[in-house]
C-alpha cells in the first residue's frame, strides 16, 4: 500500500520535472534563437498535444489502433474553411443547388438500398434489386451532381471555384471541425470497429486516404489541391498592429520594436487560446480516466470478452471513444488551419500527421494524458529543432574534416541528417524509458 502511494508521488514529481524541462527547452529556444520561434513551436506543440490526447484516448484508454489521424485532422481543416471563409455567391448561383440536390440523391440512394436489402428476403432477387437501385441512384446522382460541380468549379477557378464557407468567426470552426470529424468517425466506427489491432489500423488508414482523396478531388468543396488561403483570423493582423500608433507606443514602452512586438503579440494570443483548450481537455481527460468510466475502458482494453461478460457494451464504448478521439483530432485540425490561415491538402501526409502523432503518444507514455501532452510538445520541438541542430552538427563535423569523398557526401546530405538525428533521439528516448517518459501507472 505504502509503495503504491510512493510511486504515484514519484510520478507527479516526474511529471512536474519533465514539464519544467519542456518549458526550459522552449525558453532556451527563445533565448538561443528567437522568442517568435519558441512561440511558433509552442503553438504547434499545443495543437500536436490535442491530437496526441485524441490518439491517447483511443489507444491508451481503449486499445484502438487508429492510424487514420491524418484524415480527421484534414476534416477539421475543412471545418475551418466551411465555417470561416466567405461564401462564394456566384458559385452558389452557378451550381450550388445542383450539388446539394445531387448529394441528397446520393444519400437517399444509399439509405433506400440499405433498407431494401434489409427488408427483402434473402435470395438472388434481393441482390439484383439492391444493385439496380444503387446503379440507378448512382447514375441519377452523377447526372445531377457532376454538372453542378463543374459549374461551381468554373467560377473564377484560380481564386475561388468553390462554394465557400459561412463567413462565421473562425473560432466557431473549432467545435465545428471537431463535430465534423466526430460525425465521420461515427460512421466509420460503425463499419470498422469490429476489426482489431493492425487490421483496424490499416482500415483507418484507408479511410483517411479516402477522406483525403475526396477533399483533394472535389474542388467545389474546398478547392481541392488548389488550396484555400486567407482564412480569417481570430487574432489581429501584425500589419494592423504595426500601423496602430497605440500599439507601437506600447511596444516602445516595453523596449521592443513594433515588428517584433506585433509578431510576438499575435503568437502569444494563439498560445493562450491553444493552452486554454489543452488545459480544459487535459482536465476532462484526467477526470474521465480516473473515474469508473476510465476503469471500464481499461477493462475493455485488457480483455474485451471478459468485459462483455461483465455487462459492458464493448462495441458502444469503442464507438464512443473512437468518436471522441477523432473529434479531438478534428478540433486540432481546425485549430491548425486557423493558425496557418490556410488549408493545404498536400501537407496531409501520413508521416507527419499520423506517425509523428503516434510517436508523440508513445514517447510521452501511452495511457497517460500528461504524457500525451508532453510527448506532443517535445516531439514537435524535436521535429523542428533537429533541423538547425543537425546542420550545425554537420557543420562542425565537416569543418574538422579533410576535403574528400566523405566530406562531400556529408555536406550533400546535410539536410537529411535531420531525419537521422530525429531517429536517433527517438531511439534514445525509447531506450531509456521504453514505456514512455511518463508511463501509465
Amino acid at each position, binding site marked *: 500500500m505504502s509503495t503504491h502511494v510512493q510511486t504515484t508521488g514519484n510520478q507527479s514529481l516526474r511529471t512536474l520535472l519533465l514539464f519544467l524541462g519542456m518549458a526550459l527547452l522552449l525558453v532556451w529556444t527563445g533565448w538561443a534563437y528567437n522568442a517568435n520561434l519558441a512561440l511558433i513551436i509552442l503553438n504547434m506543440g499545443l495543437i500536436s498535444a490535442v491530437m496526441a490526447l485524441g490518439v491517447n484516448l483511443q489507444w491508451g484508454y481503449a486499445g484502438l489502433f487508429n492510424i487514420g489521424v491524418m484524415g480527421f485532422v484534414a476534416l477539421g481543416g475543412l471545418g475551418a474553411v466551411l465555417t470561416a471563409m466567405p461564401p462564394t455567391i456566384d458559385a452558389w448561383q452557378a451550381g450550388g443547388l445542383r450539388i446539394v440536390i445531387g448529394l441528397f440523391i446520393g444519400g437517399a440512394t444509399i439509405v433506400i438500398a440499405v433498407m431494401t436489402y434489409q427488408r427483402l428476403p434473402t435470395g438472388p432477387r434481393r441482390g439484383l434489386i439492391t444493385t439496380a437501385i444503387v446503379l440507378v441512384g448512382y447514375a441519377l446522382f452523377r447526372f445531377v451532381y457532376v454538372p453542378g460541380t463543374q459549374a461551381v468549379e468554373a467560377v473564377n477557378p484560380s481564386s475561388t471555384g468553390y462554394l465557400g464557407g459561412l463567413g462565421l468567426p473562425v473560432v466557431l470552426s473549432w467545435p465545428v471541425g471537431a463535430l465534423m470529424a466526430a460525425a465521420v468517425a461515427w460512421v466509420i466506427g460503425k463499419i470498422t470497429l469490429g476489426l482489431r489491432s493492425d487490421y483496424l489500423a490499416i482500415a483507418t488508414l484507408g479511410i483517411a486516404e479516402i477522406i483525403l482523396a475526396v477533399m483533394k478531388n472535389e474542388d467545389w468543396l474546398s478547392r481541392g489541391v488548389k488550396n484555400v488561403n486567407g482564412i480569417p483570423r481570430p487574432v489581429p493582423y501584425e500589419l494592423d498592429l504595426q500601423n496602430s500608433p497605440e500599439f507601437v507606443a506600447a511596444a516602445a514602452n516595453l523596449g521592443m520594436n513594433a515588428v517584433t512586438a506585433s509578431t510576438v503579440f499575435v503568437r502569444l494570443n494563439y498560445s493562450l487560446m491553444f493552452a486554454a483548450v489543452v488545459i480544459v481537455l487535459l482536465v476532462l481527460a484526467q477526470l474521465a480516466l480516473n473515474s469508473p468510466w476510465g476503469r471500464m475502458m481499461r477493462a475493455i482494453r485488457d480483455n474485451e470478452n471478459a468485459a462483455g461478460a461483465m455487462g459492458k457494451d464493448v462495441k458502444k464504448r469503442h464507438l464512443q471513444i473512437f468518436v471522441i478521439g477523432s473529434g479531438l483530432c478534428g478540433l486540432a485540425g481546425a485549430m491548425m488551419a486557423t493558425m496557418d490561415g490556410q488549408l493545404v491538402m498536400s501537407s496531409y501526409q501520413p508521416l507527419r500527421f499520423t506517425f509523428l502523432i503516434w510517436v508523440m503518444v508513445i514517447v510521452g507514455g501511452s495511457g497517460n494524458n500528461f504524457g500525451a501532452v508532453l510527448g506532443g510538445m517535445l516531439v514537435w520541438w524535436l521535429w523542428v529543432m533537429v533541423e538547425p541542430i543537425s546542420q550545425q552538427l554537420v557543420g562542425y563535423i565537416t569543418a574538422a574534416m579533410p576535403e574528400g569523398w566523405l566530406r562531400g*557526401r556529408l555536406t550533400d546530405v546535410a539536410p537529411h541528417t535531420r531525419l537521422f538525428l530525429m531517429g536517433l533521439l527517438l531511439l534514445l528516448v525509447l531506450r531509456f524509458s521504453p514505456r514512455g517518459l511518463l508511463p501509465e501507472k
Partner: protein
Amino acid sequence: MLDLINAGVALLNFIIIPATAYGAQLALGALGATLIYGILRFSHFGHGDNMAFGTMITIGFTNLLLGLGITFGPFPTALLALPFGIIVTALMMLLMDRTVFRFYRRRRAAPVVMTMVSLGVMFIMNFVVRFGIGVDDVLFADGTRFIIAAREFRDWSGLDEALSLRMTQVITVVTAAIAVALLFWFLNRTRTGKSLRAFSDNEDLALLSGINPDRVVMVTWIIVAALTTTAGVLYGLDKSFKAFTYFQLLLPMFAAAVVGGLGNPLGAIAGGFIIAFSEVIVTYAWKKVLTYLLPDALAPAGLVQLLGTDYKFAVSFAILIIVLLFRPTGIFRGKSL
C-alpha cells in the same frame, strides 16, 4: 474477330500484365513485412527503407561487376549482384537487431513500442540510403528489357493494339511464386521453420522446448533480408531506384500483408494481387475495350469509368476494408497481436 483480339490485347497490355507484375512486386515486399510481424511481432516501418538499402547495396555491386566487365547475358546484371546485396543487408539487419530491437524484445515491450522504435530505424535508414546513393533516380537495369516490345508486337501482328512484356515483370512473378512456395515449405515443414512459428506463438514455451531465441531471430532477419533485397531490386529494375519511392511503397505493402492476413505468406501474395488489381481495374476507363466490342453505333462517347484515377488509392483501400469486414483478420486469417 479482329476487334475481339484487339480488345483482349488491350486488356492484357494495360490491365492484366501490369497488375500481375505490380501485384508480385507488392507481394514480395509484403512477404518480408508479414514475416517480421508474424515472428518478431511488430510492424516494421523501416521496411521500405530497408528495401532501399538492399537495393542500394546491390546497385553498388552491380556497378562493380560491370566495371569488371561481367554481365548476365539477357538478364540484368543486378541479379548476379543480388546475393552480395542480400548478405550485406542481412548483416545490417542483424546489426540493427543487436543494437536496437533486441533490447525491447528482451523487455517484452508492447508491439506498438517496437513499431515506434522501427520508425526511428526508418528515419536512420532514410539517412543512410541518402548518404549512400543520394536522392536521385538511379537506373541500373541492363540486359534485355523486353521479352515482347510493344511497337514490335504491333508491327508484327498487324493489330491496332500493342502488347508489351518486360523481362523484369516475368522475373518478378516467377520469383514471387518461388519465394512464397519456399517460405511456406520452410515454415510448415522444416524444423527450423517450425521453431520460428513456435517462437512467434509463445516465446517462453519455445525456451522450454530448447529453442534458441537468438537463432530464431537471426534466421528470421536473414530471410527477411533476402526477401526485402530481392523485392527492392526487382522493383528497382522494373521502374527505377529512388529512395523516396521506396518509402512510399511501405503503405501498399502493409496493406497487402494485412488484407491477406498478417503472418501468412500466402496472404501476402494474395494481398499483393488484390491491391494491385483493385487499383488498376476499378478506375479503368472501359471506353477503348467497349469501342472494340460494341458495334460502332453503340460506341461509348464518355470514358465509361466507374471512378476517376484520382480515386485509385481510395478505391483500393475501400476494397481492402470491404474484404476485412468479411474476414476481420484477412483472407487467410492472419495473426492479430
